């Protein structure tokens, strides 16, 4: 089996800014945009996979898209919802079960969403009562230790967010479109030390759809298909450090993103050094810093120099989160993973507008990370 048998022929995205639209309406809009981009009617889709975390079932979209009888599987896999839908669509193409497959991810969360209850996580009620069921505490504690071990400064965290807002200002579908500089980011309210308000993403809304085809269909369509060389989802192994853990094992924490990235590169027959543009999970600034190293793009601690020198900016040696990432787009859980892939597809096609990475990038990478220790990675090439 050759690695380039699955091609992304259509990509559709909605605005990630807050509107009155429902999650399902956004999803329908994204699917129609992806079909139009591919030049295919809905009736040509032979397998569909999709979902949201909090905005309903994807399979009900057949009411609006058309009752063609297509098998449509709902995916609800937390932060890996988009990645899992994509893996399923890839497998449908690779197996020969379908020659055209859809992956769609969408969500819509109210302001201040994500308030988990101890019982849902198998924890004593005391963790909620005493104020330890707070997601942001985990992210803060992980980067706090990382900064101690690897010499990362608070200014580097601010530079990650500054880059996100700068890239968001160049991205028409982004939510946060106003630039903020590192000093403003550092001076914003401290949420959980060392992370300030503007270093975090917020619960948001949005939808993304991708149309995958086999080589035969892609050839007939023409256009500029992008090869999806690898798409993998992994869950954590023992030894990792995750949100809402009453305890953690000793030693250097294992990383599910390292596992997923290594497998994706192995499947693609490429390595981190071959990648020209990438999208990394940036729930907050610290996550992007750590994921750069966890996915193999630099040594631990090297981020201090990379951020200061602008290496991860558009125009740098390895542009990261060229659309502003979660920090500028917000976090609609079901949509974020596919937003990353959409961005890489547009960059590799040379259609990223003002935020286009110069020099004709040929290979891209995406990585989602989320609770309770899942990671989805993809490798794409022109």
């Amino acid at each position, binding site marked *: 089996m050759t690695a380039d048998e699955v091609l992304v022929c259509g990509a559709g995205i909605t605005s990630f800014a807050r509107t009155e639209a429902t999650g399902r309406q956004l999803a329908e809009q994204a699917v129609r945009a992806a079909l139009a981009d591919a030049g295919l009617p809905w009736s040509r889709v032979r397998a569909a996979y999709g979902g949201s975390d909090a905005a309903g079932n994807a399979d009900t979209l057949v009411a609006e898209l058309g009752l063609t009888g297509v098998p449509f599987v709902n995916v609800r896999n937390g932060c890996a919802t988009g990645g899992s839908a994509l893996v399923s669509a890839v497998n449908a193409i690779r197996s020969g079960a379908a020659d055209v497959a859809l992956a769609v991810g969408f969500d819509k969360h109210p302001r*201040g969403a994500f308030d988990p209850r101890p019982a849902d996580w198998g924890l004593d009620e*005391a963790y909620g009562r005493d104020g*330890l069921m*707070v997601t942001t*505490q985990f992210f803060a504690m992980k980067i706090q230790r990382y900064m101690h071990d690897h010499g990362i400064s608070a200014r580097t965290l601010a530079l990650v967010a500054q880059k996100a807002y700068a890239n968001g200002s160049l991205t028409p579908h982004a939510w946060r479109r106003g630039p903020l500089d590192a000093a403003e980011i550092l001076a914003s309210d401290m949420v959980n030390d060392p992370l300030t308000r503007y270093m975090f993403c917020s619960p948001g809304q949005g939808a993304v759809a991708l149309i995958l085809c086999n080589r035969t269909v892609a050839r007939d369509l023409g256009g500029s298909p992008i090869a999806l060389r690898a798409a993998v989802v992994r869950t954590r192994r023992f030894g990792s450090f995750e949100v809402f853990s009453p*305890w*953690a094992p000793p030693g250097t924490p294992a990383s599910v993103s390292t596992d997923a990235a290594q497998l994706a590169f192995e499947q693609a027959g490429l390595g981190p050094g071959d990648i020209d543009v990438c999208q990394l999970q940036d729930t907050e600034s610290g996550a992007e810093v750590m994921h750069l190293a966890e996915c193999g793009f630099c040594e631990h601690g090297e981020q201090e120099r990379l951020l200061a020198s602008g290496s991860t900016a558009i125009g740098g040696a390895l542009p990261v989160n060229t659309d502003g990432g979660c920090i500028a787009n917000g976090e609609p859980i079901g949509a974020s993973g596919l937003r990353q892939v959409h961005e890489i597809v547009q960059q590799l096609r040379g259609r990223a507008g003002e935020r286009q990475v110069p020099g004709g990038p040929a290979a891209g990478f995406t990585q989602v990370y989320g609770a309770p220790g899942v990671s989805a990675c993809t490798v794409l090439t022109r």
Partner: protein
Amino acid sequence: MEGALSGSRCADCAVAAYPAEPVCPRCGGPAEPVALSATGTLWTWTVQRYAPKSPPYAVPGTGFEPFAVGYVELPEGVRVLAALDIPPERITIGMPLRVTAAGGVPRAAASGVTV
């Protein structure tokens, strides 16, 4: 209510856990209850600067004040999440701490002794 934390340890791979679990989270074998050490060192920490959402958070009668939380590494090889009864400006990674079970989540304070 104050006392040692009740954890568990796997007889085969020596992995310790808190709170006590009937099976080893690594190998799935049987785990035995064990009283964890009361002293350890701070592995990481943060400060909760705003009041968490209520419920489930129970705001103290005296009103919300920022509080610190962290993971305390114990000699059994387990890092325990604890509320830190230490002023934020005095917290440093590696500082020795005394941990107690106090009826709610584990709580840790500066031990004043080197461990």
